[in-house]
């Protein structure tokens, strides 16, 4: 019975969504349910994490069909960490959404779909069956389609077409890979696949199948050269939606890459080289894209792409230190990217624009809020001792251990251009004087004018930023805790025997 509770974070989100559907008309109550439900779901995720951290890997056989025949859910430290992070990000965004999402969007079902999206993410993190992973990916993309198009402005719809086409294509390619894998091995259970794929003698066939997975997950996680849909769609939806997309949707692709390419396809020289080349090009294109953009959210979109490269590099270097760096970066990145888009939303609510040339004077007028945003921005850049700094140290060391100076160079350039982009943002939006022409606030915002809101409502936008900033300060100032965590996860990845034995029983070993 207790084993069934490992899918509690998934079930919790599902029940919140159903509960919200009951109050379809009453948006005020929906907001309340959404926030309290998110708190409960976060408690469930904390419970799951504590349980897995204390007792080791837990599995649940759906319908009591034992693995490898039935669908299995696996909670190991990696997946429960990801569930915990997605719940924290979900809570922050849900608080932010109560004040920032317009009444019309809430009436058309923003909150239920938002919780279904988080449910899909949690399901994808917890599943141990590769076809089930595909199904969770579909749950995620269909919810994200709705969130992206909700409101129906022209820019949103245009962004949604690109997003939809690329994501459906990615799913098809991923499904092709699953079909080939099933044809080769006759199983869909990931632990069973790990054993059976390792035993296949025709390595070229395995590498060919692996490429399907790289392309499928590559589109979803926006690596070079498959990232173009991301900067052309992430700047269109409301800030709350952009935050959850930027924080979690690309990261679930990275999670799947890490899971599949440490468990099923262990990288050989071909795959390692491929990953390094992808990583370096992703870092470079993302960094230079971010350096020239005037629209803040477009700049952040390119920074997502840039930093995805750091994580993919961990797989390419494939030693423990680099993996630890990449995992630490993944943990840091989920929190910080969610927060960045929330910050962008507040900047837009205060300044009336997303464009650097139309912004200015934020520091003079809003000093306390600006200091808070500075913590977020400096964490992203990785100024020691904030959270972006520590993973890069590990990635450097990992790069030097493999003598891969090509990657180390890209990492340095990527970090510097991130610093440049953030400095440009700081100067353009915070230090520069406000532009001369006054914007007509009532025309731009209508009832959504942040400056005229009562203080309690204003703080609904600031509290989630504080929450996530505290989490990333914790990652930075107590980095030794996170290092212990990622050390454990990297251990699990390099030697997946405990995972396989937990799923298939003690008798199996690779």
């Amino acid at each position: 019975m207790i084993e069934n509770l490992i899918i509690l974070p998934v079930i919790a989100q599902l029940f919140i969504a159903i509960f919200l559907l009951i109050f379809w008309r009453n948006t005020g109550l929906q907001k309340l349910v959404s926030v309290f439900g998110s708190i409960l779901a976060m408690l469930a995720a904390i419970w799951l994490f504590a349980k897995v951290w204390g007792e080791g890997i837990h599995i649940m056989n759906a319908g009591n069909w034992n693995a490898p025949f039935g669908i299995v859910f696996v909670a190991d430290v990696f997946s429960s960490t990801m569930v915990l992070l997605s719940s924290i990000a979900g809570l922050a965004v849900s608080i932010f959404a109560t004040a920032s999402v317009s009444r019309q969007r809430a009436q058309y079902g923003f909150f239920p779909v938002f919780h279904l999206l988080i449910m899909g993410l949690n399901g994808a993190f917890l599943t141990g069956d590769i076809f089930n992973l595909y199904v969770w990916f579909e749950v995620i993309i269909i919810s994200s389609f709705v969130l992206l198009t909700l409101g129906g402005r022209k820019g949103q719809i245009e962004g949604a077409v690109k997003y939809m086409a690329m994501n459906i294509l990615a799913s098809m390619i991923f499904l092709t890979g699953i079909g080939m894998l099933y044809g080769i091995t006759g199983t869909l259970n990931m632990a069973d696949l790990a054993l059976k794929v390792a035993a296949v003698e025709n390595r070229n066939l395995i590498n060919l199948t692996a490429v399907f997975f790289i392309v499928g997950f590559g589109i979803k996680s926006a690596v070079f050269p498959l990232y173009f849909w991301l900067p052309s769609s992430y700047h269109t939806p409301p800030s709350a939606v952009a935050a959850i997309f930027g924080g979690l949707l690309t990261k679930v692709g990275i999670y799947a890459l890490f899971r599949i390419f440490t468990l099923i396809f262990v990288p050989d020289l071909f795959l390692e080289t491929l990953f390094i080349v992808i990583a370096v090009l992703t870092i470079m294109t993302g960094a230079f894209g971010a350096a020239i953009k005037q629209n803040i959210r477009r700049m952040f979109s390119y920074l997502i792409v840039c930093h995805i490269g750091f994580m993919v590099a961990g797989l390419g270097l494939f030693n423990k230190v680099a993996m630890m760096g990449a995992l630490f970066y993944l943990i840091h990145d989920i929190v910080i990217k969610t927060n960045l888009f929330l910050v962008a939303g507040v900047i837009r609510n205060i300044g009336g624009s997303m464009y650097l040339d139309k912004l200015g004077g934020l520091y003079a007028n809003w000093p306390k809020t600006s200091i808070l945003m500075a913590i977020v921005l400096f964490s992203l850049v990785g100024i020691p001792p904030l959270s972006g700094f520590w993973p890069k140290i590990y990635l450097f060391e990992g790069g030097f251990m493999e003598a891969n100076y090509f990657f180390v160079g890209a990492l340095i350039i990527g970090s510097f251009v991130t610093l440049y982009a953030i400095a440009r943002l700081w100067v353009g939006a915070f230090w520069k004087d406000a532009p001369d022409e006054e914007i007509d606030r009532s025309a731009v915002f209508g009832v959504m004018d942040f400056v005229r809101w009562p203080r309690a409502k204003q703080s609904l936008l600031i509290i989630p930023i504080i929450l996530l900033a505290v989490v990333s300060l914790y990652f930075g100032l107590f980095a030794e805790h996170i290092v212990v965590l990622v050390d454990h996860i990297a251990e699990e990845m390099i030697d997946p025997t405990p995972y396989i034995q937990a799923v298939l029983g003690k008798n199996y070993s690779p």
Partner: protein
Amino acid sequence: MELVLVLLIGVLYSAGFFLILRRSMVKLLLGITFLGYGVNLLIFLLGRITKGKPPVIDETANFFTDLYADPIPQALILTAIVISFGLQSFAIVLLKRVYALLGSDDLDDLNTPEDDDI
């Protein structure tokens, strides 16, 4: 039978990718649909085609003694069909909405200057 399916899958994949690369939105939609069919047939083919052998264990035996038709690919295809049905109907509605907003079927017209909202 296998050879026919292999050729058909090849045609569906290539037609699908070709149509996705066109500028027309309707062709994009058709391309996605063709790719979906191609993937489903691929799973069907790779699950090994066995005719007239249901996956039922004989009463007298404890395990399969003969080749049998694998039910899993069919379950997978069924799931994939349902999912792609949902996605495609969403895509149709979205593209219809785009057409209503832009009055154009051309994907290259999707680049109106960014409006600055929210």
